[in-house]
């Protein structure tokens, strides 16, 4: 290939930071599916909520970091509210639950449009991260590196949370068998509400840090929901670890697909998904769904 090395390295970094963004989204979706058994098609709307509320909070507080700490938990609370008020009513009826999340997605998207307008917005990275960084003789934008580090950090954090803490054991127990978990004194409803909150907070975090990378526009919610779905389908439903590797795969295929086969880049992701579905319907690391 006649494509110079720095360009390849640059694209690698772009792909990886994009992959981490996908991971933030997909991890939340996957967690929610594992514990609450709900496919949350409003996930992209929560991503948008994070992005726009993040903008508003930055303007209000004048500080990116304060907004980064405050906005995701606030969106998480909205997620908990949606779970308690709407989805809980439809417990055990997965299709109806999915359709309700579709409705919630429409409502949120329009509320965002009402609040922030329909114009396309490109958001600059926070000043501290807007400059370039030199690494191994090459120059990279600092913000991409920040997103990459944040993604890896959160992957480690989520894994530690799930594998090493009492809360994580509870989450895994409810995922495995809600009835037995209840007989051991765990309140499955409470665990799923909290998980829903964490999942939507992750989506909102993705929206906040993703805004400088992917310009905000109406319709982005559906696009992000779809990407998260593809990542989760490839990685295996309910598998956070699967989501991580699958996000990397999708990010790299997308990034280098654009670089080498710009005409069909988009199809590569779908082809990847179709391939996984054909060969391993339960996803790369998934268990079969019964």
């Amino acid at each position: 290939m006649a494509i110079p090395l720095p360009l390849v390295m640059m694209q690698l970094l772009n792909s990886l930071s994009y992959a981490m963004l996908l991971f933030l989204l997909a991890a939340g979706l996957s967690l929610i599916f594992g514990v609450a058994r709900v496919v949350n098609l409003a996930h992209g709307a929560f991503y948008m909520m994070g992005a726009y509320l993040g903008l508003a909070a930055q303007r209000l507080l004048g500080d990116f970091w304060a907004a980064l700490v405050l906005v995701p938990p606030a969106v998480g609370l909205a997620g908990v509210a949606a779970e308690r008020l709407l989805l809980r009513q439809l417990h055990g009826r997965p299709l109806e639950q999915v359709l309700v999340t579709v409705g919630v997605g429409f409502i949120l998207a329009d509320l965002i449009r009402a609040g922030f307008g329909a114009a396309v917005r490109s958001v600059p990275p926070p000043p501290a991260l807007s400059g370039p960084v030199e690494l191994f003789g090459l120059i990279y934008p600092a913000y991409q590196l920040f997103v990459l580090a944040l993604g890896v950090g959160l992957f480690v954090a989520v894994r530690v949370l799930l594998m090493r803490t009492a809360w994580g054991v509870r989450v895994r127990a409810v995922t495995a068998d809600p009835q037995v978990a209840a007989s051991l004194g765990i309140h499955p409803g409470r665990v799923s509400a909290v998980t829903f909150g964490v999942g939507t907070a992750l989506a909102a975090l993705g929206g906040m840090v993703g805004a400088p990378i992917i310009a905000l526009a109406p319709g982005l919610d559906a696009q992000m929901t779809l990407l998260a779905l593809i990542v989760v389908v490839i990685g295996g439903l309910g598998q956070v670890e699967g989501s991580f590797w699958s996000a990397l795969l999708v990010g790299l295929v997308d990034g280098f697909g654009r670089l080498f086969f710009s005409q069909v880049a988009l199809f590569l992701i779908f082809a990847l998904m179709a391939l996984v579905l054909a060969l391993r319907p339960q996803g790369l690391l998934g268990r079969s769904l019964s």
Partner: protein
Amino acid sequence: MPARRVPAATSWLAGLAVAGMAVVPVVAGGYTLYLATEAMVWSLAAAALGLLVGHAGVVSLGHAAFFGIGAYSVGLLVKAGVDLWVGLGAAVLLAAAFAALTGPLALRGHGVVVLMVTLAFAQMVYSAAYRWKWLTGGDDGLALPKLGGRPELFYAASVVLVVACVAALRRLVASPYGQALEAIRQNESKARALGIPAFPYKLAAYTLSAALTGLAGGLLAIHRNFVSPHDLYWVTSATLLVMVLLGGSRGFVGAVVGATLYVFLQAWVSSRTEFWSLFLGLVLVLTILGSREGLWGLLVRRWSRRA
């Protein structure tokens, strides 16, 4: 000898609805006629989706793909100077072909998985239409010459088509094959134990539903003289599901009622506010929380109780 008699109230309501459908818009003309035609086109697609959702138990959130494929087939072929009828034929065939191609992957799973995979495939088509500007005009869509003849005639033709399709679909679900689909929906493992090949039957229903939806898409292109990538967007899939659910997922008359209600409601709400999808979301959430059988089902039940 049919086993389940159609309740008198249903046929009575349906008759009234058909009569009203046929006469009122033509008399009213203008915008009412335009909306009524629009409602008929959507009714066709909603009835086709109703076959899957209500009778085969396959909930597709990807019917926008078939709708859009139909619309673009007609649009592109007509622009290329091909005969309109050939365009409509291509709309049906291409939509069916896409279903036959993606169905084997989508129908490998069950329930929510089907929904996700159909959604993903539909978004793939959307992205293609959006990006391939040289073919589809991208975001600008395709503007077409005026095609449908006199609006009254086109409307009458669409009413006839919808009535014929609903009748054919009703006949289909009353056939042994229709019963087999019902059986698969209610208990797939038992159906297979009886010797019913569940997968090919579902794939056939999926393909048929796609073909009819493709036809509806083609008609929409003629009706609007315009094709937009928005017809392929997942909101269109969700819209179709809302129509089916509004009417109660079973029975094709319900789908027609749901679609008609939706089209007029949308026109009315959109003339007052630009936040239609907020309203749509609320309707969807409330319909699902409120009843399992849709508004039409509620109406029929109330009616038969009174009778």
